[in-house]
């Protein structure tokens, strides 16, 4: 039980948080690289996936990309990317030593949940709503922007939420192979048998993950155009069975 006391001591010592290589700096770096990677993945993945969903094409790819992403260990891909002759520079401005390779890897890992959820979200807009839009004389583009997008938004957001959790987890592992980030605190602690340090790092990483998840859930609720409907849906999962499966089937993967 001594480990817990030591962990607490480590966490409450301001010296461990401040300065170069302090946990605060690592935390900011990891948040920065996670958010950047997520934004990049959203810019790349969402438009394509949403439009494919509108056209109803490419479903096989959109759904299976998640299955493929699940089977590839994040640790292995990160290790290969970092060991390979670098795509880009090792040090990258405010991102610290994480470098472009890590940014690429994180973006890749954020894509599958985004693409699968966005595609499924648009496909799941009920056929009668689509027909009603057609009957009102909407063009394809109008139907997409005024009907399908708003109705798809909650599920798209849950994809973003999954991707955020995924990216944070992957960024932690990235620190294991590629330099700073809070994962470094964990691995340093373990490889040097300084377990309180490792556990302290793990606690900070886990807490931030939970905070990010709660934050994303709040945002998701805020952008839901039909809040009553979807919260009822959550309580009576039978009516949204497929949606829940799609959500549950997603990997965090790391």
């Amino acid at each position, binding site marked *: 039980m001594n*480990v*817990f006391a030591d962990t607490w001591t480590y966490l409450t010592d301001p010296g461990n948080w401040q300065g170069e290589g302090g946990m605060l700096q690592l935390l900011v770096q990891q948040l920065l690289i996670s958010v950047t990677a997520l934004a990049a993945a959203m810019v790349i993945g969402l438009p394509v996936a949403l439009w494919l969903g509108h056209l109803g094409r490419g479903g096989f790819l959109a759904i299976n990309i998640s*299955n493929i992403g*699940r*089977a*590839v*260990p*994040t*640790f*292995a*891909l990160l*290790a*290969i990317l*970092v*060991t390979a002759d670098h795509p880009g520079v090792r040090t990258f401005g405010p991102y610290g030593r994480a470098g472009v390779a890590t940014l690429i890897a994180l973006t890749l890992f954020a894509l599958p949940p985004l693409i699968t959820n966005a595609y499924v979200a648009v496909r799941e807009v009920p056929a009668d709503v689509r027909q009603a839009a057609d009957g009102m004389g909407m063009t394809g583009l109008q139907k997409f922007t005024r009907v399908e997008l708003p109705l798809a938004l909650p599920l798209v957001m849950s994809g973003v939420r999954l991707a955020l*959790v995924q990216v*944070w*987890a992957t960024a*932690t*592992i990235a620190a*294991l*192979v590629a330099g700073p980030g809070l*994962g470094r605190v*964990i*691995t340093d*602690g*373990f490889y040097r048998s300084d*377990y309180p340090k*490792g*556990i302290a*790092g*793990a*606690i900070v*990483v*886990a807490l931030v*993950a*939970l905070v*990010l*998840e709660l934050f994303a859930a709040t945002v998701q609720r805020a952008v839901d155009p039909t809040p009553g409907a979807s919260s009822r849906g959550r309580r009576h*999962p*039978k009516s949204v*069975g497929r949606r*829940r*499966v799609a959500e*549950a*089937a997603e*990997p*965090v*993967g*790391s």
Partner: protein
Amino acid sequence: MTLLAQATAAGQPSCYSRLTNEWFCTQYLHDYRSEIVDATTQHLGITVAAVLLGVVIAFPLSLLARRLPRLESSILGVSTGIYTIPSLALFPLLVPFTGLTATTVVIGLALYALTVLVRSMLEGLRSVPDDVRESATGLGYGAGRLLFRVELPLALPVIMAGLRVATVSTVALTTVGSLVAYGGLGNLIKDGVTTDFRAELFTASVLCVVLAVVLDALIVVLQWVLTPWTRGAQA
């Protein structure tokens, strides 16, 4: 004794020597065969143990959640919360309780598998049509027989889909266990990164994916074998 020394002693540099350091190297597969087999065996053992433990815990939990809807949201909430924690952070949190052992990794991975499994079990049991359930009750099926002879077989496709997801992601996550030195192929990957040994790193990564695909295929076959039997029994 370095790899370089070995290679020069043999007269010809092997493809995994420091000079060439190729990504794929059959010589490596040959020379390090026992090490690779050991790591794969450990990987497989940890994965199977974790998934089985997950199933054993998830089954009663999903029954409980189905029986008590009030518990359902808290069970799902807690398991989703665990799922949110990165694996690299979850293993250290378990270390004070289980130490630097394979148990730490197995329990951690089982907790992740649990989230997917509980959800798919609940979903599967819910997918059983009410009239089927009523018919079985009308035929005099008690609660236990109803569950094992009617509901579970009908829920099997959804449960198996969850099992596939859980298994494939567990294979991938096992690599992170290298933090506590029980990562199966992850140990080779970690070693490959720290010593810049590309053949080792690449071989272990490929084996991970192969292992995931093979286990996934095995579950598909298992389902294929199980489903006609259940259909026959229920028809």
